[in-house]
């Protein structure tokens, strides 16, 4: 992402999430978003197939046994 794209995305996403970013916090937020974007580029470039599932898993929760 270019710096301009990052600024546009951060402003739009912050508005969508109703997350006000104070002027004093904006340069740092943009800097750290750019760092995250560089990390995202690294993982996006990694070849995976549609069969490669995420590491997260969910375990269904059964109801507790009745006591009476």
């Amino acid at each position, binding site marked *: 992402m270019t710096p301009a794209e990052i600024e546009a995305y951060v402003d739009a996403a912050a508005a969508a999430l109703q997350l*006000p970013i104070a002027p004093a916090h904006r340069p740092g*937020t943009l800097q*750290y978003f750019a760092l*995250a974007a560089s990390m995202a580029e*690294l993982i996006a470039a990694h070849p995976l197939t549609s069969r490669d599932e995420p*590491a997260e898993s969910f375990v269904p929760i059964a109801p507790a046994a009745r006591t009476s």
Partner: protein
Amino acid sequence: MTALAPSASAADWLLRDASDIARAVREGQVTATAIAHACLERISRTEPRINATTDVTACRALDTAAALDARLAVGDMTARALPLLGVPFAVKNLFDVAGLTTLAGSKIERGKPPAARDGPLIARLQAAGAVLVGALNMDEYAYGFTTENSHEGPTRNPHDLARSAGGSSGGSAAAVAAGQVPFTLGSDTNGSIRVPSSLCGIFGLKPTFGRLPRNGSYPFVASLDHLGPFARSARDLALTYDAMQGFDAADAGCIDRAAEPTLATLDRGLEGLRIATLGGYFTEHAQPEANDAVARVATALGAQRRVELPEVARARAAAFIITNAEGGALHLPELRTQAADFEPLSRDRFLAGALLPAAWVVQAQRVRRWFAHQAAELFRDVDVLLAPATPCVAPEVGTEWLTINGQRLPARPSLGLLTQPISCIGLPVCTVPVWGCHPRLPVGVQVIAAPWREDLVLRVAQVLQQQGVAAAPVAAL
């Protein structure tokens, strides 16, 4: 243990490891109450210099110790058999402690009600005879590697007060290195047990992801959070870790698996173990002192093989994205209304994290799983891997930049460069402290095994300690 003279004081016993203290209390050489008093006195005397502690639970400690002594006085054999009889300990202030507000290093949580009960790990340790004496400083909400906490002040490295104790469990490592307590608890999401262990010269165990229950502690990144102990000996890690094992369904990330005690096999030595050093990324991102420490450990273990994990930088990037996104999302309500009350060193990272696109996070979790498969493949051919725990020895408090392999990198996030790829896939790691690679300071080596093989990393740590290659002396304060 080396015997102490019959005239040894409780203050002398306090500087021994937990195993020795419990034995001394059991054999009547010192009382639990005397140990608790000595511990409180040492905290009071050393605290102004290191700033490891945020709460001291003196009344609770003295009451618990007195109750143990009373049980021993009437010949209670159950009390006498407790593995951590009369041993004082403290916890990172993200653990729930009954009667204390769980701060997680923050200003925002300060007005919240106190915890109604202890977290399960504290309860299990107390049931094993341990005596809680306080809560410890940390990076706010565990997002940092230096414990430069702007609300509480920085925790200082007991071996050099100008330097960082590491983080985010900096208080947990510094308290042990300063001899305030023989063991503590901390958390590790990306390196927060292993980094401060390395910088403060003590042993630290990050168990397998899902092994120890995390309910009763303030979360940071549910996908990556681990809890574990710090100590001055491998034996104490085994002793305390064994006392904490056991499934708890209240933690969605805890795996329903039987306890696998490690103490009984601790002295089995190296027989049958295939040990190799991790090359590539791990040597390229370490300064000479850290690589020297790994070389010394490898030589001592007779480990001549060098192996590589593929795509380590991408695994680190995956952990970075998952952490940033989950941490930001967790704190979104406070970021909306109280952003100015956040730690200035991490606030903007939380803000950015709250905005990350979902596609990045899902891709990170897919890369994570791919990387876990690569590690599993490597572990078919090797039992234990060695890597530096930190790229360097403890930097000075306030350090902004590090030079690693000719690259100028931001100091605070870079302290976790070597731990982050390993916790990303939940492998068990014991950090062992190595001295002599730097003129005055320690640096840690990660001893890594396949999932659920905490027994192996502790066995290797025990060998290294017995050989004198790894050691955790109390700092001269």
